[in-house]
């Protein structure tokens, strides 16, 4: 881990020593409601960055914008120096920026192994005409299958590989989605609430997997609600509230930031609203 992540003080929108993703003036409005209005943000390369914030802060919308699943009203962003504004989602994924979804999207009526193979890139058999001639894609298929089997073993899904994805538990589907995303051989992995709805035992193994991604040289950006989880694994934390970046910094410092406490608990969280007194009175 580099000793220094940010250039200068950790203020919202601060520059990073080695950013992989840089976004400028990204704005998305739904009618009169400004869901995302990010002036400037940089995601440090090779580290785990957590994007936190209360419900409705615009985290998922920001994810959708960055990955091409939604179009902003204005704004620019670059991934590894390549401009991504207006690039369709499938091309973003091909460039090495892959995402998962808050509501897990396992492909239920195909097998776990087929789910995995679908993540592979540059399989010539995915073209309509070449699909008809098996020798053209058989070798790629074997290589893909071997890589998929290896990942499934790592994610402890190898015994399930011939089952329909529909037969997996919610937590296993999260694992499958993450493993499938890795099949694309990404440089930046964006996880939208990877821990939501997962039991505590599986949470630990998910955390290990996320750390594993970093050890393999990938950059991770993830959305999460649970502060303890964030403190546990992230190197850097970005806080969003009402569509804006309100704070940034290393996890332990960010948690003490009054702007963050405000965003999560409201500015008047410590003033007595009188409900307790009334309750005692009765």
């Amino acid at each position, binding site marked *: 881990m580099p000793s220094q992540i940010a250039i200068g003080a950790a203020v919202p929108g601060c520059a990073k020593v080695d950013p992989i993703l840089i976004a400028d003036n990204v704005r998305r409005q739904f009618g009169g409601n400004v869901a995302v209005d990010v002036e400037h943000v940089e995601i440090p390369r090779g580290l785990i960055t957590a994007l936190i914030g209360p419900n409705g802060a615009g985290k998922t919308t920001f994810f959708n914008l960055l990955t091409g*699943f939604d179009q902003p009203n204005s704004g620019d962003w670059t991934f590894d120096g390549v401009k991504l504004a207006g690039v369709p989602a499938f091309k973003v994924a091909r460039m090495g920026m892959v995402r998962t979804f808050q509501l897990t999207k396992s492909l239920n*009526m195909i097998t776990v192994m087929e*789910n995995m193979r679908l993540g592979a890139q540059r399989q010539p058999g995915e073209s*309509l005409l070449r699909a008809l001639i098996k020798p053209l894609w058989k070798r790629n298929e074997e290589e893909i299958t071997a890589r998929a089997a290896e990942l499934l073993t790592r994610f402890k899904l190898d015994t399930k590989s011939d089952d329909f994805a529909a037969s997996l538990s919610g937590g296993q589907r999260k694992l499958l989605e993450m493993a499938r995303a890795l099949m*694309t051989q990404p440089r930046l992995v964006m996880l939208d609430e990877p821990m939501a709805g997962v039991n505590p035992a599986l949470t630990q193994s998910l955390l290990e997997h996320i750390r594993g991604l970093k050890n393999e040289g990938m950059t991770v950006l993830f959305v999460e609600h649970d502060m303890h989880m964030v403190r546990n694994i992230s190197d850097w934390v970005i806080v969003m509230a009402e569509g804006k970046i309100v704070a940034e910094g290393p996890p332990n410092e960010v948690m003490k930031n009054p702007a963050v406490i405000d965003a999560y608990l409201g500015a008047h969280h410590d003033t007595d609203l009188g409900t307790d007194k009334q309750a005692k009175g009765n």
Partner: protein
Amino acid sequence: MDLILGNAISWLFQPITAAYALAAIGIALHFGFTGLLNFGQAVFMAVGAYGFSISVKFFGLGFWPAVGVAVIASIAMAFLLGIPTLRLRSDYLAIVTIAAAEVFRFIVSTTSAQPVTGGPQGLNQYSDGFYAMNPIPVGHYKFWVWDFNQDDLFAIAVSWVVVVFFAILLAILIRSPWGRVIKGIREDEDAVRSLGKNVYSYKMQSLVVGGLMGTFAGILFVLPTSVQPGNYGTTLTFYIWTILLLGGASTVIGSIVGAMIFWSLLSLTGDLLSTGVDNGTITFLTQNQVGAIRFILVGVALMLLVIFRPQGIFGNKKELYFNA
């Protein structure tokens, strides 16, 4: 009784049955594997029928060039329907296809189009080029209660060769990585998009290939008969859907067997009822009502099927698409 049974059995291999089976294979690709709601397979069949017959009758083309024209027209139709709708939710394709089929039928049956399309009378006498290729010696071929001439046999043989060819083609496609992407799109297109696949392009390819199957079905359908605009209404599309669901939407063989069962049952119930009416065993029906009653029976059978065996005859219950 032999005649009734013979009639019903002959529907197992009639060219019409083959045409319906092929059209159903097309929507098996659209709906069963890609999740596209094509409620206008009739338009692809009509494009085949009219594209082929107009090329022969009006432009004087030979058999193969006429087939080529139908293929090009079919691809153009798929793009016309797909470009505005495939980026939207699947319901939009359903609306557009069902409307396009009706629009097409009304255009070809207008009297002002009569010199080209034959208007309400339709077209006939365009199959000479096809039958000229018949290698079967002239004569009558009798089996059991059936009596075919050389042209009947040729039409039957060619129809089923074409059906088997497309069935094998589809079976190869859906087992390939291409088929994997297609099935992924059926399950969740955003997930497939997030894995770097151009979903829009795949949906378009599926629409074109399935539409081509409908077009070839349309040609098979009219080769031994004539082109009648009235045949290309919504009922045609819904019979094909019935056949598809009967056999199982996510299967290839299901469409073929579904078409056989559908037509045999129609023939059997129709013949049995009308014989019953003729010899006085059925007194509560008239001969005119028999035609309608048999479709009611088929409708009831389909309802029972969807309730008790929603995956179709050959479908895998695990791969059930109804409740997805």
